[in-house]
């Protein structure tokens, strides 16, 4: 699972992928649980951690439709997508801990993780901020004729941002190989989707701009995977798309939010719509895998993910001098530290003063 999966051939039934989709979702779930644990243990860099528990089908289903050459951007709740795409959970966790061994050497953290090797053009702490980049990636793909699709992942809240519509308009106008993937977990912080927009059938907007648009129930990862395949394939052929995956944000917005704005019954019902449990039940029901096998898989994943915490805790903080690195290209001088400037100014003073 350390490399991105190639998509199955277009049009294939996805049923046969369910074990793999389950495995991916299970890993995401386990990883996110460990992020929560890392936070409780005071080992994260800050508390702005947004868990994607409840949204695993979007991560697994959509990345399953992507090919190795494809690129994507994610949002502040993007751990699951990145992991599903094939990220190394240790380097992810180290980044979340602000450690040198992390994907971004502790500079980016949870909300600014990226890996060019996997086509991950970056997570974003600006709601909607990563969306227009996929238009540019689409232009590159067309000019380079490399058959790559670029996927922007974002939440329902990002449908409030104008850039989404600008970017959809451009993608439709130019027929770019782009997918706008909206993970509709019903909330943007404390605001329920119907408190943020009058028409919650979000895909209708995309259609009005001339894209393919679909909404799908995220409870069933196979449905997500199939819709994603349809839309990604169409995007690759020049018709961009929009896919809203409806799911439920199981926990608070960030680690400190206890969601007092939701009532217990709603949360209970929302958590019943668990894509991981649903896939597990279906695997057993279809006789594809035995419960005991799944238990073994789950334990194996749990062990793998436990190790990410130990790994992270054992890592070092980045060295202070690295602060001035990577503002510009390594071939360029680093920005002058304030201290250096002041040393010079005050030294001159002492010489001449």
């Amino acid at each position, binding site marked *: 699972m350390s490399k991105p999966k190639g998509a199955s051939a277009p049009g294939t039934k996805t049923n046969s992928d369910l074990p793999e989709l389950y495995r991916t979702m299970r890993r995401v779930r386990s990883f996110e649980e460990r992020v929560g644990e890392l936070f409780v243990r005071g080992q994260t860099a800050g508390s702005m951690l947004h868990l994607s528990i409840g949204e695993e089908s979007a991560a697994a289903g959509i990345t399953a439709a992507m090919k190795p050459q494809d690129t994507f951007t994610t949002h502040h709740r993007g751990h699951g997508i990145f992991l599903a795409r094939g990220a190394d959970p240790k380097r992810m966790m180290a980044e979340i801990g602000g*450690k040198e061994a992390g994907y971004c050497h502790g*500079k980016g953290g949870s*909300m600014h993780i990226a890996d060019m090797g996997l086509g991950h053009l970056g997570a974003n702490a600006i709601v909607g901020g990563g969306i227009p980049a996929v238009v540019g990636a689409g232009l590159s793909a067309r000019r380079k004729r490399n058959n790559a699709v670029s996927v922007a992942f974002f939440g329902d809240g990002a449908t*409030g*941002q*104008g850039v989404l519509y600008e970017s959809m308009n451009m993608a439709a106008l130019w027929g770019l190989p782009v997918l706008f993937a909206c993970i509709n977990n019903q909330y943007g912080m404390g605001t329920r989707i119907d408190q*943020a927009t009058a028409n919650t059938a979000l895909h209708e907007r995309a259609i009005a701009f001339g894209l393919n648009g679909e909404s799908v129930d995220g409870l069933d990862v196979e449905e997500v995977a199939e819709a994603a395949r349809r839309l990604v394939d169409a995007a690759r052929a020049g018709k961009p798309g929009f896919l809203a995956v409806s799911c439920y944000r199981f926990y608070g917005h960030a680690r400190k939010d206890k969601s007092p704005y939701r009532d217990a019954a709603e949360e209970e019902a929302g958590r019943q719509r668990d894509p991981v449990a649903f896939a597990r039940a279906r695997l057993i029901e279809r006789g594809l895998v035995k419960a005991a096998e799944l238990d073994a898989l789950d334990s194996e994943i749990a062990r793998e993910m436990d190790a990410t915490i130990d790994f992270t805790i054992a890592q070092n903080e*980045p060295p202070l001098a690295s602060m001035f690195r990577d503002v510009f290209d390594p071939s360029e001088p680093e920005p002058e*530290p304030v201290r250096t400037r002041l040393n010079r100014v005050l030294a001159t003073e*002492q010489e001449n003063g």
Partner: protein
Amino acid sequence: MAELTYRDALRKALADAMTENPDIVILGEEVGRYGGAYGVTKDLIKEFGPERVIDTPISEPSIVGAAVGAAMTGLRPVAELMYVDFLGMTMDQLANQAAKIRYMFGGQIGVPMVLRTQGGTGRSAGAQHSQSLEAYVMHTPGLRLAMPATVADAYHLLRQALERPDPVVFIEHKALYTMKEDVDLGARPPAWGKAAVRRQGKDLVIVTYSRQLHYVMDAAKALSAKGIEATVIDLRTLNPLDFDTIREHVERIGRAMVVSEGAMTAGVAAELAARISEECFDFLEEPVIRVAGEDIPISVSPALESGSVPGPQLIAEMAGRLLA
């Protein structure tokens, strides 16, 4: 006298002003039911209702733009940007609309709105949630700019901002919300636009604002232990800028340092240093020293984050050397 946090002082300023003036409305993301990302507007929706405390979609440009339109049609809106880092999306509505409307329209109408937001480091929130962007605002003609450093100022400056005839950008500091002070809100505050001299000392003047005031005061204490006495000026508002107070002290003392959390180059510290250097030239015994944020983005790594902005130690060290 009552003990109050910076957060609660802000909240009380909003509540008191809203009680007095029915035209005040608040609009922004999570300001209502959620009570504000940093809790400043907590329960105001219960007190004033959803017509006056308006939860918006995540649409910063249009939040600011809607506030402009509301201000032009008789309301006195308080728009909230959850992080000053989102200013970038709103600069058209803020700088091309709010700031210029009175002027472009020949004085027909003003835009009496307040844009409340918060900035600065301290929460490992990363490059897009930790900036100090007041320089963009200070550079834009037509905007007022307030940045409270104390609990009392959190209250009074916000109350005053809500009486101003022109758009005020009001930037809080995320690391100050839980700070407590004993304050007597009944005491008459300094006038809008006046700096506060937080400490008097004969050896150098340190000009600062917002959270850095506290670092400067800490540094001043450390310096005092070594026999160096600093005068500390808290600007409170960057526009209007109370240069008279700065001048008075710098001309008397002859040594000045400016301290700002914002990136150094072309930032607020540059303006203050340039102004002091040109206006007080003949009185300066040493160059005006700028201690400011590094010209780099902010990291999530706590060590790198705090290393990116001035702290009491750097301030004290450089002040000490200036006097050596």
